[in-house]
C-alpha cells in the first residue's frame, strides 16, 4: 500500500510539473498547445539515454532533458508561433502526430515501439535515491519560478500578449520573442518531468507521449483553473487519483474501470465548465466575463 501511494505521489508530482508548465503558456500567454507530451517525451528519452549510456545522475539527466526539450521547442516554436489562436492548435496537433511517429520509428534513439528498458535507478554520490523527493523539489522550483515570473514584468508581458497582441507590440514588446521564451521555459520544464518519469519507471515507450497524454495534461490545467498558480497541481492530483479511487469501488468490475473512468472524466469536465468555468481554483468572474 505504501509503495502504491509513493508511486502515485511521484506520478502526481511529475504530472504537476507538466500541468504547471503547460499552464504557463496556456494561461498566461494564451498559446493553446496540444503538443506538450512531445516535450515530455523528448525529456524522457534524453534523460533515459543519459542514464543508460553515461551515468544515472538525476541532475545531469534533468539538465540534458531540459536542454533538449527547451532547445528543440525553439526550433519548432519559431515557425509555429507566427500563426495565431486556433491555427496554432492545429499546428501543434500536427507536431504531436509527427513526433509520436518519430518516437515509434527512431529505434536507435527511442527504442522504437518497444521503448527503452532497464533504465537504471537514479544515484547521487553512488547511492540509489527514490524519484519522489527529486520530483517534489523540481515541482517546488517550477511553482516558485512560475509565481515569480507571473507576478513580475514577464507575466504582465505574456498576459498583455494574450489579451491584445497588437497593442502589446505597439507598446514596444517583441511579441514573438516573449512567446518563444515562454514556450522554451515551459518545454524545458516538461523535459525535466520526462527525465524524472523515465528514471522513476525505468521503462518508457511512445505510449506515454501521444496525443492522449497531451490532452490529459490540458484537462488537468483546465479542470484546475488556467492562469492560476495552484490550479494545475490540483487538476493533476485529481485526474491521477481518479483511476486509483475507482479501482477501490467494489461494484465496478476491474475490466470496466477504464470505460467508467472515461465517462466520469467527460461528465466532470462538462459539469465543471458549466458551474465553474474558470476551473476549480480559478477566479469565477473571469470565465463568465462578456469580452
Amino acid at each position, binding site marked *: 500500500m505504501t509503495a502504491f501511494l509513493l508511486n502515485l505521489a511521484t506520478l502526481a508530482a511529475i504530472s504537476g510539473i507538466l500541468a504547471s508548465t503547460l499552464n504557463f503558456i496556456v494561461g498566461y500567454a494564451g498559446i493553446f498547445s496540444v503538443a506538450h507530451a512531445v516535450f515530455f517525451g523528448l525529456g524522457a528519452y534524453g534523460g533515459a539515454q543519459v542514464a543508460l549510456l553515461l551515468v544515472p545522475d538525476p541532475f545531469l539527466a534533468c539538465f540534458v532533458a531540459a536542454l533538449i526539450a527547451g532547445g528543440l521547442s525553439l526550433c519548432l516554436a519559431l515557425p509555429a508561433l507566427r500563426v495565431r489562436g486556433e491555427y496554432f492548435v492545429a499546428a501543434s496537433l500536427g507536431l504531436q502526430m509527427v513526433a509520436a511517429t518519430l518516437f515509434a520509428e527512431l529505434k536507435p534513439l527511442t527504442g522504437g515501439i518497444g521503448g527503452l528498458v532497464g533504465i537504471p535507478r537514479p544515484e547521487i554520490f553512488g547511492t540509489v535515491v527514490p524519484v519522489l523527493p527529486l520530483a517534489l523539489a523540481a515541482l517546488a522550483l517550477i511553482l516558485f519560478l512560475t509565481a515569480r515570473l507571473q507576478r513580475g*514584468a514577464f507575466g504582465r508581458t505574456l498576459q498583455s500578449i494574450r489579451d491584445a497582441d497588437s497593442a502589446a*507590440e505597439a507598446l514596444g514588446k517583441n511579441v514573438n520573442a516573449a512567446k518563444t521564451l515562454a514556450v522554451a521555459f515551459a518545454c524545458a520544464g516538461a523535459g525535466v518531468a520526462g527525465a524524472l518519469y523515465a528514471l522513476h519507471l525505468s521503462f518508457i515507450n511512445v505510449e506515454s507521449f501521444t496525443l492522449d497524454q497531451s490532452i490529459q495534461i490540458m484537462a488537468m490545467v483546465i479542470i484546475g483553473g488556467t492562469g492560476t498558480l495552484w490550479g494545475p497541481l490540483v487538476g493533476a492530483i485529481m485526474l491521477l487519483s481518479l483511476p486509483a479511487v475507482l479501482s477501490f469501488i467494489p461494484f465496478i468490475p476491474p475490466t470496466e474501470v477504464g470505460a467508467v473512468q472515461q465517462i466520469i472524466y467527460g461528465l466532470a469536465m462538462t459539469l465543471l465548465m458549466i458551474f465553474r468555468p474558470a476551473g476549480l481554483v480559478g477566479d469565477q468572474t473571469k470565465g463568465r466575463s*462578456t469580452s
Partner: protein
Amino acid sequence: MTEVLLKSENLARAFGGVQAVAGVSLSLPAGQVTALVGPNGAGKTTTFNLITGNLRADSGTAHVRGKPVMGLKPWQVARLGVARSFQDLRLFTHMTVRENVLAATETAAWFWQPGGARARATREDRAVTALEATGLSALADARAVDLAYAERKFLSMARVLAADADIWLLDEPASGLDLSSRLRFGELLRAATARGVAICLIEHNLDVVAELSDRIAFLDQGRVLAEGDPQSILRDPALAAIYFGDRPQEAA
C-alpha cells in the same frame, strides 16, 4: 521653426484594386497637435498602420527624428518613441488598470526588465503619474473589462502616456466622450504638447478638431487634399462639401 519629429513622404498602399493610401506626406512638428480629418475610408487609420509597421507600404518613406522606419516591425517603431492608440482600444482586458499601464512601461521581452530596482521604481512612478493624469488612480485595481466606456478610453490614453513616447498617434481617442471628459482629454493633450510631444489625432467631430488641433491635414481617397491651420481648413466650402458627402461631380 519647430523640430519635425515624424515625417512621411508619398506613402502609398493598395488593397487589391483599392488604393487606400495614395501618396500621403505628413509632418508632425514637436509640441503641436495635427488632426487627420476626412470621410470614412479616406485612409487615415491605414496611414497610421503604414507608419507604425502594422502594414507594409507599397512605396514611400517615413522617418522618426531622421531615422527611416520603413520595414521595421511595430515594436521597433514603438521603441523609437512612437506610441499609438487604437480605435477599438485593444485594452489588456483581463488585467487590472494598474497592470495595463505598468505593461506599457515594460518593453523588454526577456524574463526580467533591465536596470534593476531603480529602473523599476522609475517605471512605477511613470505608471502612477499616468493614472493620476487620466483620473484613473481610484480604479487602479479594477480590471479593464469592468470599466465604463469613458474610463476605457482614458485607460487607453494612460498606456500612451506611460509609454513615455514623444510621438503620439491617436485613433479617435475622443469619440463618444461627454463634454467634461472631453475637456479633461484636452488638458492631457495640452500638457503633452507643452512637453514637446508631437501628436497626430484622427477625429470626426469637427468641434473637437477645432478645439484641440493646431494644424489640420484633410484626407480624401488616400490623398492629403489640404493642410493648414484649423480655421482656414474648416471654413473651406469645398472641403466641407466632401466631408459632408456632397462630393462635386468629377468631369466625365
